[in-house]
């Protein structure tokens, strides 16, 4: 198993209170596997992504858990050791390429620097940089361009090229296409898919479940800091267990089927004071309908159970109570 | 009420500049209390001459007495009234003139803007003190005229700052949205742009007050402000200065320290607020 995350919890210590951004998240990613974390803004998915590469911004702190990457617990490494891994074995692509690229330097130079920083000789790096630009479909004459001379899609490709400089085993992509138009988004997704096929595992974050379902091998659904469901894409799409997963799937249109669209009522909770018991229960239509669930869903947090092989859910409808 | 709690929280937040801010506020508060409660705090009548001339600081006269036997401490306490009232009057006047002009100039642009900018830049180019002196001389010495003179100097400061902010704010989406609703220009300026100037105006206010204190002290030092026997720090400084070499240090020391302290206090508040605001944008 390439990456195993166990019981990860991350809190933000802000002036207005402790935000329990991520609570007890457990999952794994295998070689050549594409796992997508999907959820609304504030669900904690980006925080999990930043934790894997240990770039959680202050006032955030990883309070507990293990991140086992190729057998080593990343949380126990020193910053120096972690720096050896960042950019080489694990790398990351962000949502806004305009801020993650230096606007004052040519893209070719930035690509070269990503490699020389890890000790690669400059000429070799230049060669490799040209190869990488080709790999991401940027014409080689753009080597000397500045970021503002490229389109949004091209800038994102450059970011991906930088991330792929050392053929990392794991590529973390945090909403890389959210700021892009739909045709460009499709081509970037094609590119990431080709990287996966060549051997890189992908940890993808998005709020768009259609995007998640279309390309991933596995999907992890996050709500209010908790992992509520995890499984293969077929399991999640064809047999969604958690009421939130079902609501999420119903809330988006599909151009190719006549699926009706139903909005999810309410808003995600304030994580300084999350609801008691299951964090989703105030918006859960099943909780609202079934009186017998009172005293359970609003009192006790459901545990994650394996419903069928590889398909996990944290919901009282399927057990998950400590008393069972 | 609803403003006080977040305001106090804002002030006490453990952020850089908290020390500066609290020190500045403490000093200003002290001077304000001095000014308001002068009749109670000052032990003697500051204008009354006594036979006890040139007395060094002692228990009877904590800051000593001057050439006319007047208690320096009482003069300091009563002097705070003059300083504060002149400076605040001047600053208020600057704001009343400078802010609306800056708004109009920034909002409409074009010829009005060019004309006003040229006028304001010309005024701004003069060293503050010299300009104030010229006006004070023309108008004649009195606290009100001093206030007018000083206000003249600082109008361009407010004008420039408000104009600059207006220029950037008027391109914001919420201003466009206000236009889309059909709001008239005056409404857009007053209801949408002006409230968003708040923090920056506050910072400029404190810094210009700091400067104005020094300018007022300068003017009164030159005898262009109050007339004797009204107590005023700058005036006392001037009167006491010739006696410094004779060893009567307290005549110069206390007024000088008060001027410096008060100006510095406002400047510190301004700096601290500035840091807070740039840190805490949204």
């Amino acid at each position, binding site marked *: 198993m390439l990456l195993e995350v166990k019981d990860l919890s991350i809190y933000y210590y802000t002036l207005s209170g402790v935000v329990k951004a991520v609570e007890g998240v457990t999952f794994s990613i295998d070689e050549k596997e594409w796992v997508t974390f999907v959820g609304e803004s504030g669900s904690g998915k980006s925080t999990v992504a930043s934790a894997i590469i240990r770039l959680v911004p202050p006032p955030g702190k990883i309070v507990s858990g293990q991140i086992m990457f190729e057998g080593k617990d990343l949380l126990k490494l020193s910053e120096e050791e972690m720096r050896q891994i960042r950019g080489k074995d694990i790398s990351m692509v962000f949502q806004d390429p305009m801020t993650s690229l230096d606007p004052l330097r040519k893209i070719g130079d930035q690509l070269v620097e990503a490699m020389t920083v890890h000790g690669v000789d400059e000429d070799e790096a230049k060669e490799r940089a040209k190869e990488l630009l080709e790999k991401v479909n940027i014409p080689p004459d753009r080597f000397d361009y500045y970021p503002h001379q490229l389109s949004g899609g091209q800038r994102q490709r450059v970011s991906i090229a930088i991330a792929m400089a050392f053929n990392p085993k794991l590529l973390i992509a945090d909403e890389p296409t959210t700021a892009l138009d*739909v*045709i460009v988004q499709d081509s970037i997704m094609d590119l990431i898919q080709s990287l996966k096929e060549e051997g890189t595992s992908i940890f993808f974050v998005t709020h768009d*479940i*259609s995007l998640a379902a279309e390309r991933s091998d596995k999907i992890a659904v996050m709500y209010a800091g908790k992992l509520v469901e995890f499984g293969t894409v077929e399991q999640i799409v064809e047999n969604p267990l958690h009421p939130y997963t079902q609501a999420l799937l119903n*809330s988006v249109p599909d151009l190719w089927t006549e699926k009706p669209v139903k909005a999810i*009522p309410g808003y995600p909770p304030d994580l300084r004071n999350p609801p008691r018991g299951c964090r989703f229960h105030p918006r859960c239509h099943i909780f609202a309908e079934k009186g017998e669930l009172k005293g359970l869903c609003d009192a006790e947090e459901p545990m994650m159970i394996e419903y069928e092989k590889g398909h996990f859910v944290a919901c009282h409808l399927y057990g998950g109570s400590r008393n069972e | 009420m609803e403003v006080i709690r977040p305001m106090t929280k804002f002030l006490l937040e453990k952020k850089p500049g908290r020390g500066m801010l609290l020190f500045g506020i403490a000093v200003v508060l002290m001077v304000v209390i001095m000014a308001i409660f002068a009749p109670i705090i000052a032990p003697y009548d500051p204008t009354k001459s006594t036979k006890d001339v040139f007395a060094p600081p002692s228990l009877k006269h904590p800051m000593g007495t001057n050439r006319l036997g007047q208690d320096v401490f009482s003069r300091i306490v009563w002097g705070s009234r003059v300083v504060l009232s002149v400076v605040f009057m001047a600053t208020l006047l600057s704001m009343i003139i400078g802010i609306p002009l800056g708004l109009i100039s920034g909002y409409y642009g074009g010829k009005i803007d060019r004309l006003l900018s040229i006028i304001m830049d010309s005024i701004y180019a003069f060293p503050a003190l010299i300009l104030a002196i010229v006006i004070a001389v023309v108008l004649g010495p009195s606290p009100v005229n001093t206030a007018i003179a000083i206000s003249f100097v600082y109008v361009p400061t407010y004008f420039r700052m408000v104009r600059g902010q207006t220029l950037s704010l008027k391109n914001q989406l919420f201003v466009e949205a206000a236009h889309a609703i*059909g709001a008239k220009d005056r409404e857009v300026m007053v209801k949408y742009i002006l409230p968003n100037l708040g923090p920056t105006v506050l910072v400029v206010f404190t810094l210009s007050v700091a400067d104005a204190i020094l300018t007022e002290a300068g003017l009164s030092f030159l005898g262009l402000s109050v007339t004797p026997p009204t107590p005023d720090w700058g005036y006392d400084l001037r009167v006491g200065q010739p006696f410094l070499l004779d060893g009567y240090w307290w005549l110069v020391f206390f007024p000088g320290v008060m001027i410096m302290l008060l100006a510095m206090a406002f400047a510190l508040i301004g700096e601290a607020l500035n840091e807070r605001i740039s840190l805490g944008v949204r």
Partner: protein
Amino acid sequence: MSEPLLKVENLKKYFPIKRGIIETLRRAPVRYVKAVDGISFEIKRGEVLALIGESGCGKTTAGRTILRLIEPTDGRIIFDGVDITKLSREELRPFRRRMQIIFQDPYASLSPRMKIGDAIAHPLLVHGLADKEEAKELALKMLRRVGLTPEDEFYERYPHHLSGGQRQRVVIARAMILKPEFVVADEAVSMIDVSMRAAILDLLESFRKEYNMSQLFITHDIAVGKLIADRIAVMYLGKIVEIGPTDEVLKNPAHPYTMALIQAVPSIARKKERKIEITGEVPNAANPPSGCRFHPRCPLATEECKSKEPELIEVSHEHFVACHHPLR
């Protein structure tokens, strides 16, 4: 009611490109970014037209120009039979009440220092439709209507206290309080989570029914068009390349670009088919390609496409396309 509420005729908006010193001295002709280059359409009362296109196609400029937030370079805008293209600001003011706009960025469209309740009430005061007390009452009612309850609490809050979805509801409330007949929604849900969009669109739909309101819904996401639009118009580099009833355009797209847009939308069911491959990116609007502007990226391009600009032709009932080789 056969007369459409809004008629746009050959609307153009050109932005001059600032010339450098040398160019000015050489008296080189001024070049323009032809953001909107002659678009025409009609919207009936109560109808929703989705204007679809990628960044740089001119759709946002078109929306703002129709509302005269930007001055048109050429063409006519006819609202309820009145030509509003050249009206002065004073003459335009009564029309402002009847046509509103909802912007993309819910945070930037609200003044950070105005209580959201006051922001919602303000349009009423601007048009003298209510005094301060009444306006506040109506604003509270509107807060309840858009789902921001308890409304007295929300009235007093400032934008930074709210989430993106909540802020967009405030923006909608502010636009709807005047009971407009026509609203331009400029990427109104693009900055909101996908799962929250349906709720916001439902809200807009409920207003449409209540006021029999027409909408011009500008978006780059054709799937949103499917949810709310009666008709779809596809824009590319300043021109409308296809326009027709929603179902018709989505099921039988006639223009290759429309087909490309449809194919690119992710599908949960993974049931989509890729019938067409287009290449490259949207070119610079200052230098549009000759002939059909889409030809450099089109797999079906011929010599005719490179030299002659296609006109809109009807391919089926009320379904028009500007292409020399439409897909049907």
